Structure formats: structure tokens, C-alpha cells
């Protein structure tokens, strides 16, 4: 199976923000990722698409340290994530090392995972205060600013259960962005939403993409959205990159049969 790497990418691989080197992941008997090589540049917006089971969610979960690779190396800014160098050798990383590197990564989940016992404002200020060490005032300022940006400035004292799905997801985005990560991961963030609420969330993400220089990895089924936001679309199949490139190329002129078959499901 030919891996189609963009020439530009081969040259840039050394300066990549995030790099997956021959990463494999096995869950019990099933091999979900069979040797992934992927590089993400600073500020790049990458959409991961593919059928379920292709491994796209696993890829970002490993970056967020929610899953451990079975083998291979994931690097952030040139430094291994799951290993650390001790006396010139690579040993499995400890929690301290993971925490240090995790500062640069943020994630928005499919099922929001907001903290139900905290108000919206507290949901967004909790981590800046306790993890980044900001003062309550600084954290509140940042949070209010962000919540205004996502259109929820009037809901600061509400509780998650009082919000709609779209509103909850926008809070979740604010909560993650306020930590100012270098890479933001989006795990099918509109899949659990009622159709009429999807648009408001996608708009927030589009605005984010334009206004910030965060790199983004978006696992999504929304092809139009991928075309609008992404710099590069990566199509995964059976744990390998089947095809990748420019959104318009990939989505309008798919070269591989599998990608054609996959996309045909999304066209009317």
C-alpha cells in the first residue's frame, strides 16, 4: 500500500510540532494502528477522516495521553511524549514528564464532559487556577473573555444541565482553549449533537481556526466543515494513512478507491 506523503511534509518533518513515528496500537487482539507516520506543523489544521475502526480517535487520544501506544514514538516539539531520555536511553515516561508535555495539548470531547457540579464560569476557570496557577481575577478575566467569544457570556452562573448540547460543547471548547495549548484536539465534537445545534459549534471552531495560531487535529464526519477549516485532510483506513493532502484535492478528486467509496456515503 503506497503512502502518499506530501513532498513539503517530508522536508518539514524535522520541525514538526507533533510527530508520530511508526506508532502502533493494539487493543487486546485487535491491532487498531499498524505503523502510523504523521507530522503536524505548528499552526496547521488537520482533519482526520475515515470509517469507524480506522483508528482516528485513537490517534488523538494517544496524544492526549489517554491511551498508550503499543510501540513507536510520539514527539511534541521534538521531545518524546511517552518516553523520556535517561542517560541517553529511552525509558517509559513518568507522570511528571507526561504532565510537563501535556501543557501544550488540549482536547474537546464528543460527550462534552463538563463538570456538572460547577457553574459554567467555574468549569472554565478551574484548570487555569489550579493547573496554570493563575490568580482568581486573571483566570476569571480570561474565562469571561472566552465565554463571550463563544457566545455564552450571559450564562456564567448557569449549570451544565441547564444548557443545550450545542451550548455545552461551546463551553467545553472555551474550557480547553483558555489553557492556551499549542495543539487542540477535537474528537467528533458534533456527532452527539442534534442537527440544528451543529452549526453553532462549527462556527466557533472556524472562528478559532482563523483567529488563533493553535494547531488543530479534528476528527470529524462533517466533510464541508473539513473543507472550510482544514489545511490538510488525512484519510485513514485500517490504522494506516490511505491518502492525504489538500482538502479540495482529497474531497473532490479522491484517488484511492476506498476513499471514493467512503466519500460516496456523504454525497447525496
Amino acid at each position, binding site marked *: 500500500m503506497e503512502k502518499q506523503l506530501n513532498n513539503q511534509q517530508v522536508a518539514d518533518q524535522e520541525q514538526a510540532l507533533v510527530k508520530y513515528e511508526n506508532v502502533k496500537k493494539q487493543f487486546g487482539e485487535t491491532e487498531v494502528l499498524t505503523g502510523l507516520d504523521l507530522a503536524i506543523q505548528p499552526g496547521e489544521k488537520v482533519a482526520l477522516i475515515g470509517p469507524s475502526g480506522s483508528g482516528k480517535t485513537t490517534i488523538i487520544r494517544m496524544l492526549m495521553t489517554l491511551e498508550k501506544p503499543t510501540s513507536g514514538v510520539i514527539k511534541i516539539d521534538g521531545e518524546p511524549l511517552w518516553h523520556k531520555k535517561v542517560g541517553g536511553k529511552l525509558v517509559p515516561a513518568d507522570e511528571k514528564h507526561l504532565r510537563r508535555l501535556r501543557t501544550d495539548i488540549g482536547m474537546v470531547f464528543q460527550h462534552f*464532559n463538563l*463538570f456538572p457540579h460547577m457553574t459554567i464560569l467555574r468549569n472554565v476557570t478551574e484548570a487555569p487556577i*489550579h493547573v496554570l496557577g493563575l490568580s482568581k481575577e486573571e483566570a476569571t478575566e480570561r474565562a469571561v473573555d472566552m465565554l463571550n467569544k463563544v457566545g455564552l457570556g450571559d450564562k456564567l452562573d448557569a449549570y451544565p444541565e441547564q444548557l443545550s448540547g450545542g451550548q455545552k460543547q461551546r463551553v467545553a471548547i472555551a474550557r480547553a482553549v483558555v489553557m492556551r495549548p499549542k495543539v487542540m484536539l477535537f474528537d467528533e465534537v458534533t456527532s452527539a449533537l442534534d442537527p440544528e445545534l451543529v452549526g453553532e459549534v462549527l462556527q466557533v471552531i472556524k472562528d478559532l481556526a482563523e483567529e488563533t495560531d493553535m494547531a488543530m487535529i479534528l476528527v470529524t464526519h462533517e466533510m464541508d466543515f473539513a473543507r472550510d477549516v482544514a489545511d490538510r485532510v488525512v484519510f485513514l483506513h485500517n490504522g494506516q494513512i490511505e491518502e492525504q493532502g489538500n482538502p479540495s484535492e482529497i474531497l473532490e478528486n479522491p484517488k484511492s478507491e476506498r476513499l471514493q467509496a467512503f466519500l460516496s456515503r456523504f454525497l447525496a
Partner: protein
Amino acid sequence: MDTYKEIIPLILPGLTITLKVLVASVALAISVAFVAGLARLSRFALVRKITAVYVELFRGTSLLVQLFWIFFALPAFGIQFSPFLASVVALGLNYGAYGSEVVRSAILAIPNGQTEASIALNMTRWQRMRLVILPQALRIMLPGFGNNAIELLKGTSLVSLITLTDLTYKGLIIQNNNLSYTFPVFVVLLLFYFIIALPLIFGVRKLEKNASRGVAKA
């Protein structure tokens, strides 16, 4: 009716002891429950195993046997507890073991997504427990603790068998002194225990209704 009026003041000193034992044992049981419950979820296998042994030991044997062992058998190792202390230790350790299961299952009931969101925000393990998991788990635990407390209250009557002068002991003395009091005495005893339990019963019912508010659903 007059017999009842005569009995009640005689029983009241026992009420004081029962309440003292109850409060002290509940305090011990809650502390033990949290320590053991969290220990059962520890990363370290040794901690988990040792705690599991303690929990299974106290849940698998009879409370009365534990009480007797602490009061009668420990002296063989040089540890002599007063009846009060032996009672509090036995009740606290026994109901602490049951309580630890309440703590453990409440924490396990919190959906994974909450843990994952905390990891994504780079909280430490302890921050995650303190800020996200425990506040939600506490709501779930309360009805379980309430029921535990009612069981503990019932358990306090056993201390009469190691000569601690609680309600039950007082009742036995009174009916011993005057056999005609036998029926009223035990009726009064049952009523006293029931009256003490009533606030707990109503409390638990209210807690059970509130248990799932403000807690993430899977």
C-alpha cells in the same frame, strides 16, 4: 401507663451512653471508610490488597464476634480496652469496612469522561479527586452512609453484652429487678431506638431523591 412513666427516667442514662457510642463510632467509621475506600482504588497493588483483606475480614465475620474478640481476646496481647473503647473500635472498624464499599462504588460510578476531561486539563491525580470526582461522588455516597448509620445504631445494642451501660443494658437491669416491668421495658426500648432512627430514615429518603442531581451521567 404509670409503669411507662416510671421506666422512662430509669432508662434515660442508658440513652446518653448509646448516643455517645453512636457518635464516636460513626466518626470513626466515616474516617475509616474514606481511607479504606480510597486505598482500594490505589495505584499500588500492595495497598489495595492489604485494604481488601481488612474489608473482607470485617465484612465476613460477625459484629458480635469482633466485639467480643476486641474486648476479651486482645488482652492476651496486652491490649485492654474499656467497654466503651472496645465498642467504638469494633463498631467503627466493622461499619467502616461496609462504608468503604460505599465510597469505592460511588467513586467508580463517576463516568470516565470526567476523569478524561481532568486529564485533558492537566490536573494532578489529587486535584482530579478533590475538585472533580469526590464532590460528585459524595452526593452518591450519602444515602449509603445514611443506611450504614441506621445499621450502626442497631449494632450499638450489642455493647450491652460486654457490660457497657447503654439503653439495652439499662433495660435488662430494670426488668431483672422487677419482672412485672418486662413487657413495658422492651416496648420502651424499641420505641427509643426507633425514635433515634427516625431522623436518619427521613434523611436517607431525602438523600436518595437528591442523589443523582449534579452528578455526571455516563
